[in-house]
């Protein structure tokens, strides 16, 4: 709950170190929310009850039937259309903190470098340590510091993407805030949602965080080189993934040793080829 994750309370979103509100001149236009676009396609219409005694005088009920994340969903669809027009393959990489998102992205970009150009948007509550790591590796990167917000939202991605030369990229990787709860609900406009499970975490993580793992298009078991030391029960982890993320492609790899990376890279190249069409 928010007392723990802190989201939605205060905190300033910064993109590349600058306040998000100043980073983009259309922010007020985006922010006005287009309140007239109701789900039903028409204006809100009240259904006043015939039975006047049902409510105190003057009270009316109106059906709204709108998703609480409707605005984010609309902005995510706009991102998706924009990215498709740019023929980009967009990945949203999610996991708990410390599961190896940055290392996997760094190694993936390095291996792809000879064939595909990779850019990265990194989300963290604070610091640009992850961005610095990726930048040192020669990867174009924008850091979004979310303040206290525990997830990235579609609008943050739209603004951050303006700071990358998308025409010079083939693949855009979004490294989400390390969190297995809140980011599950926020579509960013990605093509594929990649959820990581490291061998140093519990095998039952998918069962404990079902919305996140269920939302995955791809599940990647990372740090396979540490599996024996961590006493990782592979069969149990795969069974948990098959139960919750039954539709997801599963990869097992170690970004550090390179074990299992070829299959993952080949998959991304295939996905990029179909994104280009």
């Amino acid at each position: 709950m928010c007392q723990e994750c802190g989201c939605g309370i205060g905190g300033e979103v910064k993109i590349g170190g600058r306040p998000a509100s100043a980073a983009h001149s259309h922010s007020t236009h985006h922010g006005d929310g287009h309140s007239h676009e109701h789900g039903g396609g028409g204006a809100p219409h009240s259904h006043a009850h015939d039975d006047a005694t049902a409510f105190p005088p003057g009270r009316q009920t109106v059906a709204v039937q709108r998703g609480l994340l409707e605005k984010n969903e609309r902005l995510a669809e706009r991102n998706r259309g924009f990215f498709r027009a740019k023929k980009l393959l967009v990945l949203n990489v999610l996991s708990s903190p410390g599961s190896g998102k940055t290392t996997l992205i760094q190694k993936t970009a390095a291996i792809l470098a000879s064939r595909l150009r990779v850019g990265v948007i990194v989300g963290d509550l604070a610091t640009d340590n992850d961005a610095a790591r990726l930048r040192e590796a020669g990867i174009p990167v924008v850091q979004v510091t979310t303040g206290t917000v525990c997830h990235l939202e579609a609008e943050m991605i739209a603004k951050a993407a303006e700071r990358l030369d998308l025409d010079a990229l083939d693949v855009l990787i979004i490294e989400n805030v390390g969190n297995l709860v809140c980011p599950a609900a926020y579509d960013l406009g990605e093509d594929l949602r990649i959820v990581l499970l490291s061998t140093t975490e519990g095998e039952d993580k998918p069962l404990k965080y079902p919305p996140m793992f269920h939302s995955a298009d791809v599940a990647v078991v990372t740090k396979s080189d540490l599996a024996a030391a961590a006493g990782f029960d592979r069969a149990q982890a795969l069974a948990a993934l098959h139960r919750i993320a039954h539709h997801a492609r599963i990869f097992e790899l170690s970004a550090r040793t390179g074990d299992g990376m070829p299959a993952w890279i080949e998959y991304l190249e295939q996905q990029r080829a179909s994104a280009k069409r």
Partner: protein
Amino acid sequence: MHEVSLMENAVRMAVETARASGGERVHRIRLRVGAMSGVVPDALRFACDMVCQGTPADGAELEIEEVPATCWCAHCAVEFATPDFLGQCPHCHAVSGELRRGTEMELASIEFS
């Protein structure tokens, strides 16, 4: 989850809807929350009073309809209740991952004047 920001969205939408219909105050907010949405109804209730303060929804009552998770069996053409994302059809015992309901987070209706 981010129940405070979800509640903020709900209250903003409720106030917008009331104003669009010529209302000034929101008296009741009805939400629909699915069992698999990851949202905790109690956390929404906890957030509601705080978020409503100082808005036209100040003092509004919150009603939450909790929607159980339901899977679809294509073979039997029935919906059935499921404890998680993978349900077993009670008729043919086939496993289905096609969740029909249970992921909702919606503002269902409001009462205003």
